[in-house]
């Protein structure tokens, strides 16, 4: 009997694994078709659309006020910033100047949203690499922000607090105090995050040198937000295309040049500090004034094309409105940060282990409804 494998008719085939749509690491309904060789990843092919609601098509039939609440349901972890993006586009198109008070409040809540999003990401990040306790610590701090939101905006996640022309209602009297309490509380918690996870030798080994993305690739893949900044590409929309009250504050753009998972992780931790500093600069100086300017009940945008970028917790969100002068947009496109960031997953995961894929995917901080829209 011939026992020589090379001479026999044994065939070698690729080993496919379906990761998702229901899988603990894909956070929602992302499906990855993995081609693996033992533990080594040979190819990652995302399959999307499990939660696609065609928000862009729905926007074409909705009025501009109604569009705002749909954006809550895209990247639900930065819903306020999404709302703000649509409102800014509409306000810019109408040449509408909103009161200073609105700008400052929008910025404060936007930064709180960013912290809340990063808290959740930090918890989930730990969970993906196997440290289950981080999840609850992240949620503990996020809960305080959610309470602030609930008291002022009436909802914890899908707030819909912005309307074209300002805010739906003024901030709650407790808002300033609660926010200050949170800032004081959270300043003691980020060092705890570092102690528990960042410094941990296992975590460092899992993250360092894993999922490397060079600056050129980051730009070419259209990466934005902490993913791009971890690779040394300075792309903070808040710096380069400043909006709302962000031109009144000073903050540093968190930037790392290593381009690995650890760099992306550290950028987000650094961003939490920066957001705290932005909030501290603004919270004592909320100007008095109206919380909105009157707009027509039916908003009609002038004919033309309007584009607005904002920096959500995940990166650059773009709103592109093509208006023909009616009360609905003719075409509305959301440039979602997660979609571009997902496209580079194959690039950074190939050659790594399954565990590396999970770790790098966690540092991309994907929110699937944001990708699927």
């Amino acid at each position, binding site marked *: 009997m011939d026992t020589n494998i090379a001479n026999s008719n044994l065939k070698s085939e690729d080993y496919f694994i379906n990761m998702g749509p229901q899988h603990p690491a894909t956070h929602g309904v992302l499906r990855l078709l993995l081609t693996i060789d033992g533990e080594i990843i040979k190819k990652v092919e995302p399959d999307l659309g499990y939660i696609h609601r065609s928000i862009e098509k729905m926007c074409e039939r909705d009025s501009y006020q109604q569009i705002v609440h749909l954006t809550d349901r895209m990247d639900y972890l930065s819903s306020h910033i999404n709302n703000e993006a649509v409102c800014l586009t509409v306000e810019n198109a109408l040449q509408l100047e909103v009161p200073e008070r609105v700008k400052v409040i929008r910025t404060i809540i936007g930064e709180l949203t960013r912290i809340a999003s990063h808290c959740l990401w930090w918890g989930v990040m730990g969970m993906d690499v196997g440290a289950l306790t981080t999840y609850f610590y992240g949620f503990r701090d996020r809960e305080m922000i959610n309470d602030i939101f609930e008291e002022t905006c009436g909802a914890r996640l899908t707030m819909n607090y912005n309307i074209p022309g300002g805010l739906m209602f003024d901030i709650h009297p407790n808002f300033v105090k609660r926010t200050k309490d949170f800032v004081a509380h959270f300043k003691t918690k980020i060092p705890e995050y570092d102690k528990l996870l960042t410094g941990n030798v296992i975590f460092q080994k899992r993250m360092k040198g894993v999922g490397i993305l060079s600056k050129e690739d980051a730009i070419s893949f259209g990466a934005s937000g902490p993913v791009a900044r971890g690779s040394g590409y300075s792309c903070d929309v808040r710096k*380069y295309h400043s909006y709302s009250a962000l031109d009144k504050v000073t903050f540093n753009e968190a930037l790392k040049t290593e381009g690995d998972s650890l760099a992306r992780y550290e950028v987000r931790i650094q961003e939490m500090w920066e957001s705290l500093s932005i909030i501290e600069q603004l919270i004592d100086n909320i100007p008095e004034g109206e919380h909105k300017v009157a707009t027509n009940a039916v908003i009609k945008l002038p004919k033309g094309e309007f584009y607005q970028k904002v920096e959500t917790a995940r990166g650059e969100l773009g709103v592109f409105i093509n208006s023909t002068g009616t009360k609905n947009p003719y075409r509305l496109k959301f440039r979602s940060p997660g979609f*571009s960031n997902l496209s580079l997953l194959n690039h950074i995961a190939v050659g790594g282990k399954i565990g590396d894929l999970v770790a790098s995917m966690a540092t991309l901080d994907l929110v699937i409804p944001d990708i699927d829209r």
Partner: protein
Amino acid sequence: MDLMKVNKRAVMTNEALQNLISSWNFELEFTEEGSQFLNISVKPESFHQLMSQLKSNNETYFDYLFCVTGMDWGKELGVIYHLESTKHRHIIVIKIKTDDRENPTFDTVSDIWKTADFHEREVFDFFGIKFNNHPNLKRLFLTDEWEGFPLRKDYVDEINMVIK
């Protein structure tokens, strides 16, 4: 205020950009149609060449493709590309159109910007616009057996679409 600032800066560069790009011997059409950016319409034939030149030329250096929008203008189908330069920080908008609604085809730019791979697949999925030389032009969001292209204006689905 912000808008005014951006506009002022952008208008300056827009003119310079227009002068520069119009010297490149392409058949181009410059517009601003209410947008704060410089808009360029280009014929599909010279599209790929223009795009690669926009990226490689040192003065334009548009290396960051951040938004690819499929469009249905009713009669024509087309794609809008938003480009930014990470060096000069200027933004430009490129448009291509075709009258062919049955079999609209453009050249891919996924060889110039890797991000175009996914974005073009999205456009293909929702508008049915094909891209020559695209490495993996498959449906991305919808199932393979889906009929029609939902974001086109003439798409009808009487069961699932609620029209106000």
